């Protein structure tokens, strides 16, 4: 899923400092799963903002909504004209949400309440880790099912670099050296040969480097499915 972190309350308050009435919109997709922008978080953010503004003697009126998904026009359209009843709208979805909202409601201002961080999953309660960089050409099967593009600080295809120490990455001792794990897994499996030789240069055209990306499923476009 897409993982995000909520921005600081100070930053969000700064965005809407000239507003008297706003709407906070959550999303039931990824940000609900990673506990950053679902119903509960919308309620917490709204009440925190209200208390802060009240304390400043400048009360802020806030309405709350949670959409099924903010990355789908069908659900985004459910806000309707109501969206223009506010001085601004704060979206708690990933970076996709406030853009879909901005594209549909051109007269309104939308502010992002979260920083979208990575594609990953929860490794324990309250901890999420990156697993995928969305490079567009998956080759994890060549590396024992572990992705060095997303998980090596240098995206090495022939690691580990000289900074690997006790299974930790040189950049951050709390980060696993994924190449240490790849090598150990391959050694245990007796498949060290897979790591020898020089792999061809990666084609980054399918990643962000090839420009903004688009997926087209013809059968769906034509309405056959």
């Amino acid at each position, binding site marked *: 899923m897409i993982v995000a972190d909520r921005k600081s309350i100070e930053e969000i308050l700064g965005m809407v400092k000239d507003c008297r009435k706003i709407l906070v919109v959550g999303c039931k997709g990824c940000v609900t799963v990673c506990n950053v922008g679902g119903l509960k978080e919308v309620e917490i953010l709204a009440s925190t903002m209200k208390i802060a503004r009240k304390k400043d003697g400048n009360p802020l009126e806030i309405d709350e909504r949670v959409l099924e998904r903010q990355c789908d026009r069908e659900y985004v359209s459910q806000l309707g004209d109501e969206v223009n009843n506010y001085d601004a709208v704060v979206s708690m979805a990933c970076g996709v949400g406030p853009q879909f909202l901005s594209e549909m409601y051109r007269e309104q201002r939308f502010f992002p309440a979260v920083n979208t961080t990575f594609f990953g999953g929860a490794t324990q309660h309250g901890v999420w880790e990156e697993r995928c960089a969305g490079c567009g050409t998956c080759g994890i099967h060549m590396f024992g099912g572990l992705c060095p593009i997303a998980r090596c600080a*240098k995206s090495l295809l*022939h690691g580990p*670099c000289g900074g*690997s120490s006790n*299974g930790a990455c040189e950049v951050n001792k709390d980060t696993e050296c994924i190449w240490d794990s790849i090598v150990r897994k391959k050694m245990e499996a007796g498949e060290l040969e897979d790591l020898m030789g*020089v792999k061809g240069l990666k084609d980054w055209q399918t990643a962000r480097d090839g420009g903004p990306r688009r997926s087209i499923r013809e059968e769906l476009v034509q309405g056959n499915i």
Partner: protein
Amino acid sequence: MSDFKSGSNLERVLKAGHFAFTGECGPPKGANVAHLKEKFQYLKGNVDCVNLTDNQTAVVRMSSLAASKLLVDEGLEPNFQMVCRDRNRLAMMADILGAHALGIRNMLCLSGDHQTFGNHPQAKNVHDIDSMQLIALVKKMRDEGKFMNDEEIDVPPKIFIGAAANPFADPYEFRPYRLANKIEAGADFIQTQCIFNMDKFRDFMKTVVDMGLHEKCYILAGVTPMKNAGMANFMKKFVPGMDIPDDLIKRLKGVDKRDQAEEGIKFALEQVAEFKDMEGVAGVHMMAIEWEHRVPEIAERAGVLPRPVV
């Protein structure tokens, strides 16, 4: 000449069977050519070639390519370092051609320290290709006369290809295999990470020799003389991939502060003496960090002067 891959002085010295002695020089944090040339003079005649580091420790400096050219102009031979952090494949191929055009005949192909260790940690890193692929790329350009995309090169670059090896990083048992892979990719010579843990290096070299890697490639042992115990402590704590035994720190601390530099040099000289006799070691890469002015003395006392002319 035709028997040589690049005809560089380093290649000639190694092929003639001499024990190589290479040096290093960090380009300035500025365009101070005068200071750089002053540092070159300490190395002239005392080493077979000089590594010009490429934004080492991810700190911005004068480009290693420009500094290499300045070194050529002073009558010394550069070993042009290139890291994968700052250039994509286009810039790399362009600079490899440019290096040859400027009279540069040695290159050291590196991944590069991560930018979080440097003075612009906010920077985007490139890592379009990695050091293994860079080695293979230079080899392809030189031996096949082709760019990465197989287009013909009009006058291919003649470069003696260097690579690094860190025998002390984890997982330790994989390191000889990664070295083998670099040799297979095209490395003509290896300069190792600074060696301080001699026990571990002896063990590493035994494996390397058992695998026959020393017969496929020239391995130069990396030596950095410690200036004092503080430097040893700092490197142990903050420089990734360093293995500095407590015994060495104890030894440096065991002498008066003003004698620590001499003690550091003594340890380095003992290392050079052992490397001269160590099977599989073809030379020493002396990284006297911001201590270029001590290199003439170190080379003299190490008994590696005069440098061979071949």
